[in-house]
């Protein structure tokens, strides 16, 4: 016997609720690049989304994690040669990032920074601080940390900083209404 109208309605309602609950008002973002321009895009989107009360989760992986290092000169102890090399050659913190094009040994980067200031665009430091105030979560990929030989004590102080693996990203992305890879 086929379902009554009431039964069909009930099923439909259940399905509708399931669909409605499956996606949160949440943005998950993979940040892989350590290019200044891409990092700027990532943070402007993150802060903009947070301003719209969207929960934001940023996953920093591979090259991008060097942007979250403290600007300290000394490296952590107990590193092998490769780790020391990575530690020396990669940017230490947001201020050392380079433009992906027109960097011109840093001239282009300084020009961009000047133009940004002139146009009242927030610097990366300011955007990071705002992201922290608005409760944007940042998770750092532990596998990349091991690859580059970075230690937790070398990373910046950020209010919502965590360390995670790919499953955390996938679980969070799965329940987000928006996902980005930068």
């Amino acid at each position, binding site marked *: 016997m086929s379902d009554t109208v009431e039964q069909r309605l009930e099923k439909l309602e259940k399905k509708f609720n399931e669909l409605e609950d499956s996606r949160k008002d949440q943005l998950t973002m993979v940040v892989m690049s350590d290019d200044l321009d891409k990092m700027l895009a990532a943070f*402007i989107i993150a*802060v*903009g989304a947070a*301003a*719209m*009360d969207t929960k934001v989760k940023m996953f920093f992986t591979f090259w991008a994690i060097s942007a979250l290092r403290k600007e300290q000169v000394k490296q952590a102890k107990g590193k092998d040669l490769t780790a020391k090399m990575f530690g020396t050659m990669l940017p230490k913190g947001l201020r050392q990032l380079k433009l992906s094009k027109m960097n011109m040994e840093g001239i282009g980067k300084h020009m961009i920074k000047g133009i940004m200031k002139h*146009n*009242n*665009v*927030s610097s990366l430091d300011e955007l990071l601080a*705002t992201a922290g105030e608005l409760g944007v979560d940042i998770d750092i990929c532990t596998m990349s940390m091991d690859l580059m030989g970075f230690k937790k004590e070398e990373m910046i102080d950020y209010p919502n900083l965590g360390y995670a693996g790919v499953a955390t990203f996938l679980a969070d992305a799965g329940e987000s209404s928006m996902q980005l890879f930068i």
Partner: protein
Amino acid sequence: MTQEELTTLEVTKSVDARGTSCPGPLLAAKKAMGEINSGDVLEVLSADEGTKKDIPKWATKKKHEYLGTVEESGFFKIFVKKG
């Protein structure tokens, strides 16, 4: 709302975000909205043309009512009624 209605509108709070660029005006609007009551009118001043399009989108999402924009020389006055 017509331009005339907008210019004579009684504004509860005005926030000047002309010194900031995207997403500055949005942040300023969010902050100011937290300080007024439902039914109050917020005026956002922005020199960034994108804000004209951004604020209505934000208002729709946050269930506020976008009332309209008045263009001044070099900046915009954007009016939103808190939902």
